[in-house]
């Protein structure tokens, strides 16, 4: 009797979350899928009278391949950079932050207090031909002509890494902070060098945090639209931009929905592989 009651109470607890997900994730996802089966009718309305998978065949048009690879490359490089930069920061805050840990974490999140768009526009001021970096290089006599930084892959990756870094630091911090320091101490007692203790103890035990940080960076990064569009140039078009063009310029919502759905499935598949690898690595051992 009490067991059933407890289970009921448990259900009540997840109800808001489940309802939220159903309403704002599953329902839109279903709508996207249904739309993707339709046809663009007269006046650009969505025509669902003869559903088919034709749009999916079109979604694999090779013209999209280059932009898809751009998206994957930007997201992958951004994720790796975020982990490489974020891990030492998270480690340092956890181990040496002391009483200031909370303050330091607030500093990590501080950029969120300003609109992402404004921060991205600020990068333009830093990177443009007569911007901060080029002025500095020229004042130091290192270059005579401005180096082109804006509207390049470099500016896109800089902007994305900057934008996603806090999303990587927070889960990394949690998993590093939860690691019992006495395990590292024990490794050192057993004559492990500092490096060997890190590679064999700290790193594997914080792997869940690394994977979480990687996913939290990679998934939004692959769909990022604003950063490549604002900081990028002619060669940095992403798949998200193609989807936008299909929706707004072609006004072909079914086609755009199909391409969007394919992107989602690819991302989901990647995520599942990552999680499975993690489970094997952490739970399996």
């Amino acid at each position, binding site marked *: 009797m009490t067991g059933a009651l407890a289970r009921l109470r448990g259900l009540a607890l997840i109800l808001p979350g489940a309802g939220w997900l159903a309403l704002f994730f599953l329902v839109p996802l279903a709508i996207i899928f249904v739309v993707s089966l339709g046809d663009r009718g007269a*006046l650009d309305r969505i025509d669902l009278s003869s559903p088919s998978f034709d749009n999916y065949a079109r979604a694999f048009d090779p013209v999209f391949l280059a932009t898809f690879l751009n998206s994957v490359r930007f997201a992958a490089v951004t994720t790796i950079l975020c982990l490489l930069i974020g891990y030492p920061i998270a480690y340092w805050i956890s181990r040496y932050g002391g009483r200031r840990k909370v303050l330091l974490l607030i500093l990590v999140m501080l950029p969120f207090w300003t609109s992402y768009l404004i921060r991205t526009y600020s990068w333009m001021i830093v990177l443009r031909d007569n911007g901060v970096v080029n002025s500095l290089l020229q004042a130091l006599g290192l270059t005579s002509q401005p180096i082109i930084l804006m*509207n390049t892959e470099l500016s896109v990756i800089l902007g994305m890494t900057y934008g996603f870094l806090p999303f990587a630091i927070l889960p990394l911090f949690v998993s590093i902070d939860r690691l019992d320091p006495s395990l590292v101490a024990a490794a050192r007692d057993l004559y492990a060098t500092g490096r060997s203790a890190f590679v064999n103890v700290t790193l594997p035990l914080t792997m869940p945090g690394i994977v979480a940080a990687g996913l939290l960076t990679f998934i939004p990064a692959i769909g990022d639209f604003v950063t490549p569009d604002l900081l990028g140039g002619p060669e940095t078009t992403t798949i998200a931009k193609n989807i936008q063009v299909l929706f707004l310029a072609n006004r072909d919502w079914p086609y755009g929905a199909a391409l969007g759905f394919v992107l989602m499935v690819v991302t989901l598949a990647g995520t599942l592989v990552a999680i499975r690898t993690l489970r094997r690595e952490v739970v399996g051992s």
Partner: protein
Amino acid sequence: MTDRHAHDGSSIDLEKALVRYMVERRISRRQLLETIARVGPAAALAPVIAACTASPPASASASPSATPGASAGSPSASAEPTPLPSPESELFIYNWTDYLADEVIASFESSYGVKVTQSFFSTTDEMYTNLGTDGGGYDLSFPISVDIPGLIEKGTIIELDPAFLTNIGNLGAEWANPGYDPGNAHSVPYMWWTTGVGYDTARITDELTSSNALWDARWANHISMLDDWQEVFGLTLIQLGYSANTENTSELDEALARLQEQKPLVRTYSTDTIGTMTSGDIWIGHIWGADRYAIQEVNENVVYYIPEEGGVKGSDALAVMSGAPHPIAAQLFINHVLDAKNSAANTNLIYYMGPNAAAKEFILPEILDDPTINPDQEIVDKLEELLSLSQDVRDEYLSRWQQLRG
């Protein structure tokens, strides 16, 4: 800026909404300052304040005495010169801020005994949303020409009664039969503008006249093009001697090849031309002519020209809504705006040329002498308006656009 490009402007256009948020000023600050100097800040800013607070003056159904738009819009086809019906006592205009001269409204009010109420929008998205399918309670508004076929199809605007439009002969010959609305049956053009080239004279000392300058390797990495497929293809097609609205795919292929030649030189494709042209990165850019004032405010060295090969022009039009509570007053007002002196007064306020040939003698010399506002007839003849293309044709353009941008 230019969200006249409503063909791109569905409601979820995140990027454009964001960019607009950063840069959009339909009326440039320079013009606003001039207005302030002329009439004082309170009066100059009143429309801005009104725009922030205004709501539709009344819903169509709220005025039971209203004459249904359709009945007035479709004339009873009597050849007899029957006296025109007298106008209603009010007129609701939905407009851009500072887009109609005060004296034009005042003279209409006094000669017809109609009280004119204006409400304001600041983007075309806002306008079309609030107009809905029947005008949302407004009588008259200013849709972009390229959207007129869609508005006719959806029944948002009515067919105009020629009996009211006694001044229509004032229109220049090139406006008598526009592609978007043959015979001006549903709309009357109001103002027109161009898309062209802006360049920084501090960087580029040559005097430029051709759109080929956007392909000049000397400015490599400092060239920007609009992130707007129809504008970019329009410029290129006209440069190649074709129509900006061509349906010939081999002409489109040629334009694509020409654009692919240019791509390695291009720094960015962007609609935020005010941002790019003032960043210092761009020396020469494909820009909406109306943006030049905002650009010149930051960098006075930037000049604008319409390519000698011709270019893309845009226009907006006066149209009466199908749910208009006061369709007679609205049509009489359109005729009032068609009057040469009134048309000139509007041009003198906003520095756009109107389609009104008779108005020229009343327009300020500084406007008439500016070839970027009032180009020579030779160039005017080579300007072409972008049309709303059929789905298949649009897809032909866009598959090539994706190839270029991919």
